[in-house]
């Protein structure tokens, strides 16, 4: 099948949104587009598995390669492997949910949905591109919509957060750019596949890896470049927060993974730094979360902690841990999107996100509260939900690293699951349980669209949580390839 469809459908949807009139039409068009995309992603998954079943062991399937800027040897080269596919599925799911959640967005609805779709388009393009230039192009395409979404439709100190987010992400992509230039001028191509074949001189790797990796790290909320996360998420409107945490932070993780695969020597050289930063992010994020009083801040900080696992998994550089990192990306995407959706639903009713001002919501809105609790349980890694699978895989992988310092890092990150339990239960106990205040007692429960959105995301979480072998089966071959590129197959065997 032609992967370009993955870009064309959102593009078409966006254009359609510009053409139609009225909230009703706009959101319907948006939903149709998103659902179509979801269907497409499903179909893609199906045909991907068929191809694999038919014994097609190419690293990337459905490749197509068109010259773009001939003079500069820039190609529009696209293709997917299991990891990219997982990301695409995640994105399409979250987009549908996001559209559903913002069903009643009546302020400048046209622009709102247009930007949402544009953002998602950037993500799709990013995940399918096999050419670093295209990759970078789509990476930046996904940035500006966030700025506008937060700045226009946000809450609180929105413009400041929007500005901070945009600038930090742009700084990140500037670093990425430098790194990519370095690669380009030492291989004369942006093509990931070619570069992997050619290999990059070790010196060059050592010099440019930090730029590229940290650049993507900014997107992945790597300590200490995470400060855009709390404000950005807190100020953003619900759907935007979902996209931000669910999709755009994944761009960073995915980029880090690709970079590590492209520059294995540097990755091995710097892995201890990566692990150090990741561990700090995990612990630090967890403790910082414990002190938050605003639901969105709680979730934002916990995202820092959870994305730390992604980086940790990548930094450990063995097959299991990288598997874990990928699963964690998907899991965290779904989970945190669900969390933000629930918070958004609560906020839209109670008009406060302060934990102290909430309480006993389970009585008034059982559905939303249940969603909240489920998201929370997933976040603290309860078996049966995706979070458990992801984190355990990361732990397992990291533990395979016999270096005792790395073991220590693993244990410390492991300790974060206790802290996670603390803050999740504190929030739940205060906001969802306990006595309910009089004015909240009369609030209505979720509407159909909110329910649908939540159910979609929960379904995703459960599928991974109950049948992890499915996603494992999907991504394992790709991680094998990456490990081969890394020149180090899993340390166990």
């Amino acid at each position, binding site marked *: 099948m032609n992967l370009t469809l993955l870009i064309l459908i959102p593009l078409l949807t966006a254009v359609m949104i510009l053409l139609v009139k009225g909230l009703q039409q706009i959101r319907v068009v948006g939903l149709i587009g998103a659902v179509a995309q979801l269907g497409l992603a499903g179909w893609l998954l199906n045909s991907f598995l068929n191809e694999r079943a038919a014994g097609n062991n190419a690293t990337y399937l459905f490749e197509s390669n068109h010259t773009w800027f001939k003079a500069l040897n820039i190609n529009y080269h696209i293709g997917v492997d299991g990891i990219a596919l997982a990301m695409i599925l995640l994105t399409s799911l979250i987009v549908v949910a996001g559209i559903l959640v913002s069903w009643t967005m009546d302020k400048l609805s046209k622009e709102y949905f247009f930007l949402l779709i544009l953002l998602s388009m950037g993500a799709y393009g990013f995940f399918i591109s096999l050419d670093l230039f295209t990759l970078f192009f789509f990476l930046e395409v996904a940035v500006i919509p966030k700025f506008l979404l937060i700045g226009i439709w946000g809450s609180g100190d929105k413009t400041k957060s929007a500005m901070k987010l945009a600038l930090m992400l742009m700084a990140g992509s*500037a670093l990425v750019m430098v790194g990519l230039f370095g690669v380009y001028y030492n291989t004369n191509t942006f093509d990931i596949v070619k570069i992997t074949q050619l290999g990059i001189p070790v010196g060059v790797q050592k010099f440019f890896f930090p730029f590229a990796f940290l650049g993507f790290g900014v997107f992945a909320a790597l300590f200490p470049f995470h400060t855009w996360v709390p404000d950005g998420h807190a100020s953003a409107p619900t759907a935007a927060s979902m996209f931000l945490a669910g999709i755009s932070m994944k761009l960073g993780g995915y980029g880090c993974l690709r970079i590590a695969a492209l520059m294995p020597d540097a990755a091995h050289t710097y892995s201890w730094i990566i692990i150090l930063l990741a561990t700090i992010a995990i612990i630090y994020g967890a403790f910082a979360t414990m002190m938050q009083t605003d639901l969105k801040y709680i979730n934002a900080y916990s995202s820092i902690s959870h994305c730390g696992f992604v980086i940790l998994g990548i930094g450990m550089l063995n097959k299991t841990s990288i598997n874990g990192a990928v699963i964690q990306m998907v899991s965290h995407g779904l989970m945190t999107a669900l969390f933000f959706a629930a918070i958004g639903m609560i906020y839209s009713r109670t008009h406060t996100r302060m934990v102290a001002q909430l309480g006993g919501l389970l009585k008034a809105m059982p559905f939303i509260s249940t969603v909240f609790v489920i998201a929370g349980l997933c976040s603290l890694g309860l078996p049966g939900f995706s979070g458990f699978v992801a984190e355990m895989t990361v732990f397992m992988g990291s533990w395979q690293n016999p270096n005792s310092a790395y073991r220590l890092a693993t244990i410390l990150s492991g300790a974060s699951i206790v802290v996670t339990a603390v803050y999740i239960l504190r929030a739940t106990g205060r906001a969802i349980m306990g006595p309910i205040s009089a004015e909240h007692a009369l609030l209505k429960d979720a509407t159909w669209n909110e329910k649908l959105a939540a159910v979609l995301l929960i379904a995703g979480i459960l599928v991974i949580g109950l049948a992890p072998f499915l996603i494992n089966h999907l991504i394992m071959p790709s991680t094998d390839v990456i490990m081969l590129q890394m020149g180090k197959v899993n340390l166990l065997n």
Partner: protein
Amino acid sequence: MMNYNILIQLRQELALALLIFILLFIKLGKDRSNESILNFINMALLINLGAGFCCHETGELFNGMFNTNALIVFEKNLLNLALFIISMQSFAWLKNNKNLIEFYILTFTSLMGMFFMISSGNLLMFYLGLEMSTIPLAAAANFDLTKRKSSEAAMKLILSSAFSSAILLLGISFLYGTTGTLTFSIITAHINGNPLQLFAFILLISGFAFKISAVPFHLWTADVYEGSPVAVTAFLSVISKAAVLFTLVNLLYKVFTPIADTWYLVLVVLAAVTILIGNLFALRQDNFKRFLAYSSIAQVGFILIGISGSSQAGSASLIYFILIYIFSNLAAFGVVSMVSALTGKENISDFNGFYKTNPMLSWVLTIALFSLAGVPPTAGFFGKLFLMMAGAAKGNYGIIIFAALNMVVSFYYYLKVVKSIFMDENNTPLEKLEVPTVSKIAMYICVVGVIVTGLASVVYDYINSLSFGL
């Protein structure tokens, strides 16, 4: 036969001359309504633009003083395009101005000078073209005869440009003294990099730096931009800059090849300072024209990085960027001139809540600003990226990193404008503006250009096929 050649190779200059004459006659003849004149002029410019593309052949006239080739023709066409857009955008401003013909005569003359400068093969011709392009602009800067700022701007422009041309002439004289000729092709052979020559070169380069307003020769820019009418500002910021840059590349790549290492370093230093200072000043501006002035200074810094690559990609990316710059910058100036012509307001703070009243203009401005900032999918992204790639080709990553970080700073001030348009609350936003159709068309052209030029790689490839390296 000879005459025939002249007709072909000089056709763009001749066309302009013809236009100027026609305008003179119109001025002399019985007065017509401004609309009709403007429409006529725009038509004429459109035809002129189209005609520019018709046919081009390589050749030289006046034994090497004037030479032309596909690239030069293309460059001139770019300038024509820019002028066309500007003229369409200033419709609202000129409609009620009784001196519009003078405006056009001045701009056309200046443009003609630039044409000669671009295709000059000889220092004398170059100097003539330069002056011919500068002096009318000084007059044009003073076009709002009654405005204090306007005359101040004109004064600053004429004085400092006179000073710079004196410096330039000194350089030329030393160059002449050390090489004994004025013809580019011969000069190259005589350049051996002795101190006097280097000094001459530096004087020359500073003359150029003044015209393209590179730091520290930029100080006139902001004031002149702020003072003069928007149309003139647009002309200054896009057309004259572009023309000088074309000439500069031509000189550096073709003439000063023996001292390439030196001028590479000069360019890098200038680029670094220019980007930095431009950004730092742009941060604080509230007057929109001043803001654009400094942003354009910063842009020049990036251009210099691109040129310093001194490869085919270098000049190609320069021309490509100029094309994009024409679209994006003129889109921005278009909106600003619209606002200033209809409301007289020129401050960024006046744009608070602009989106509520003028969504169309807001989007045009936003897209333009994003393109200037270099955000995909606008063309500015590609332009800037290619410039830096060209610069990076030399392997000097320090400047690239420096530029990359400065890009972030520039994002800040571009986004600040976007913020004021979309996000800042304002109880009394600008009222809904009646944009003349012509200007609308111009803006649409710009927006389409901004979107298409980047994504459609054919443009770049074509330019690349034309351009040349060291």
